[in-house]
């Protein structure tokens, strides 16, 4: 393979965990639930995926376990928020620390142990596409499905009735309720779905991108995913662009590693200033026909926060 193709493959592969995580959280936030535990969830699901794979000798079961665990954590957050009215952010934050440290502890016996790999799958027809075909569609199941997930989730959110209904819950729960949509049920289902996707993202990490387990294996990826969800304007396609952009930066950092140490340390920190900048721009663009920002850029960056994000909803009466 030429370097060019190898680079693309690397980027797409390395980005697959974040694609799952970002799209999962995008769906969750679209329905109004913030899963601040992402950092901890990614760690523990990465561990769970790997451990299950070792134990059952099947990476597929590993993926399923990771997904279920991710969903379970989201379920916990949602139930605590609904039943006890505890702030989503508080519980999410505490879980971050708990799950992170739990993964350190429980993962001790799995550090640097080899295990079964995911098979390479060749997708018919698509792998014949010139240039990218043989690279991307000739990979493992997670990388391939991450690519399909992008247009699928976009279509689901924006072109289907279910997608509109779920988005309406995140925009204005009271109105959604008046239309006959079961707000609680909808929030529960999609928050858990988001959690499952995040869990799969964790598995994608430990089963392929950075094979195995180590202390702090997926470090910072949870925070980065949260940032990219916002940067992506709660839109799977824009979020994915952010993820691939970040992936490209990572690859760049690897190549430059010999030249500048420390760039790899600074790299994970870049999404945040970008995200803040985006939010600032969005705010100004919304306020006064935008600080002289050209219309094209405004269309690109405009993305409204789901109005009811993070707000605990209580049905009246």
């Amino acid at each position: 393979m030429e370097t060019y193709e190898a680079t693309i493959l690397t980027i797409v592969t390395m980005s697959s965990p974040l694609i799952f995580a970002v799209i999962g959280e995008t769906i969750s936030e679209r329905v109004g639930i913030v899963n601040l535990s992402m950092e901890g969830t990614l760690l523990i699901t990465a561990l769970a995926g790997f451990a299950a794979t070792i134990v059952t000798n099947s990476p597929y079961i590993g993926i399923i376990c990771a997904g279920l665990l991710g969903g379970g954590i989201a379920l916990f957050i949602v139930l605590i928020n609904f039943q006890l009215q505890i702030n989503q952010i508080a519980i999410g934050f505490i879980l971050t620390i708990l799950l992170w440290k739990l993964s350190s502890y429980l993962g001790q016996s799995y550090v640097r142990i080899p295990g079964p790999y995911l098979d390479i799958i060749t997708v018919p027809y698509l792998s014949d596409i010139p240039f990218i075909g043989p690279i991307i569609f000739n990979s493992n199941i997670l990388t391939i499905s991450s690519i399909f997930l992008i247009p699928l989730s976009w279509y689901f959110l924006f072109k289907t009735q279910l997608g509109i209904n779920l988005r309406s819950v995140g925009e204005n729960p009271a109105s959604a309720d008046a239309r006959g949509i079961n707000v609680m049920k909808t929030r529960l289902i999609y928050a858990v779905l988001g959690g499952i996707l995040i869990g799969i993202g964790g598995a994608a990490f430990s089963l392929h991108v950075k094979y195995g387990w180590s202390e702090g294996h997926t470090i910072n990826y949870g925070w980065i995913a949260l940032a990219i969800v916002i940067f992506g304007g709660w839109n799977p396609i824009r979020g994915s662009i952010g993820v691939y952009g970040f992936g490209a930066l990572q690859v760049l950092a690897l190549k430059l590693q010999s030249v500048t140490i420390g760039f790899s340390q600074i790299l994970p920190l870049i999404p945040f200033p970008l995200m803040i900048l985006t939010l600032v721009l969005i705010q100004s663009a919304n306020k006064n026909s935008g600080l002289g920002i050209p219309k094209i850029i405004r269309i690109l960056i405009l993305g409204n926060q789901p109005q009811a994000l993070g707000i605990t909803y209580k049905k009246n009466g």
Partner: protein
Amino acid sequence: MKIEFKNISKSFQTIKANQEINFTIESGTIHALIGENGAGKSTLIKILSGQILPDSGSIELNESPLELGSTHEANEKGIGILGQDPLDFSNFTVLESFVTGHPSPSFIFSKNKISKNINKYLNQFDWNINLNSLVKNLSVGERQQIELIRLLDKGTKVIILDEPTSGFSLEQKRKVFKTLKILSEKGFTIILVSHKIEEILEICSRATIMQQGKVLDSIDLPTKPQVLTNLMFGTQDMSPHKNSTTNKTQKDLKISIDISDFSHKSQNTISEKNTSIEVPQKIILGVAGLQGSGADKFIQNFQNDPKKIIISGKPYFNNQNITYVPSDRLERGLFPDMTICEHIALAYNENKTVDWGEMEKLSQKLINKFGIVGAPNSVAKTLSGGNQQRLMLSLITENTELLLLEQPTRGLDIQSANYIWGNLLSTKEHKMLTIFSSTDIDEIYEYSEYIICFFNNTIVRHGYPESLTKDITMQKISGN
């Protein structure tokens, strides 16, 4: 669809919102439901739409009972409400907002089919809305138009319109009314909840008047406007107003209130000074108007921009000598989790540090003075409405020269209301000007020394009580 209300009753704690409501709405009619604020109209229609479960009674649709307390059921039976808040989704496009929660959801929603549908209605009603624009960019009237179409498209047979036209322009209103007439001829049942006598007389064939939770009467329309207003406001004491300010009017220094920000109907052809109202000092100015008429906004306006009130040619009021008392006590007037003593400290303490000993003494003094049932360490949200209002009164500092009160006795029992007015009257001489808004005509006439009438965000009349009778005021605030 014929609707029969049978002995519907509903109480909220001590308030009897609906008491044995009994009346019938015939199929294919436009029926008006009218009454003052607090009469119980809102509760009744929420019961009909399934949002509230009544304590007792039943509703029959075409002779068969309606399951109460379920919005789902009401939806199924074809009942829909269009209110002032169209309950839509501001960040969605019109099309997306329309389609949300659609009763027969296809997995993939086809824009074209639905757009065609909506456009069919838009053409029929001669309305013009771009389906791809964001809901938040539409005017309230346009949002209500879409919501109306949505209800029709859904097959709603009973359309309840809750004060719907405040967001419409004259033109839009005309079109809506034309539509409503057509619909009723087709057999739809329409219930119009409104204050606006003019509109009611224009399209309704029958009206039910409610007062204090009971049905006063149901009459056929059209009739004389007078008849309706009399029924709406009950039999009023039409005797001339007691407090006379004639001895004040001529000599005292005047206060000039700039009203150029508000649209107003000129009252006489001669007047050049239409942009301001002149009143004597130290009076109580009553702003009369029904809910949403702009009376409250008028008061808020002076909190934001006190320079609009001029005495002896100069703005007199500033941040320091104004006290504003909003109508929603816990939302905008008080700190729910903080104690009475802490509120007193916030209002009265001028220093950088707080001497709690002093504050507690002051709190106790004020508690006694205003008859607040509570202790200095009582938390605001645990106080009853009446006591919360008394607390707000106690926070009016002595150097207040302009007192702005929004609906000062809303939701209070007679005793508290009287107490509050006793206090306000006894201190009115210490203030340059007291302005209060109220939806209660009696209250306006009991205490005002000058009256401004609001309707539809416009000052429709103003004057001294001697020249502005209760009768006229009632007509004016209803839009005649």
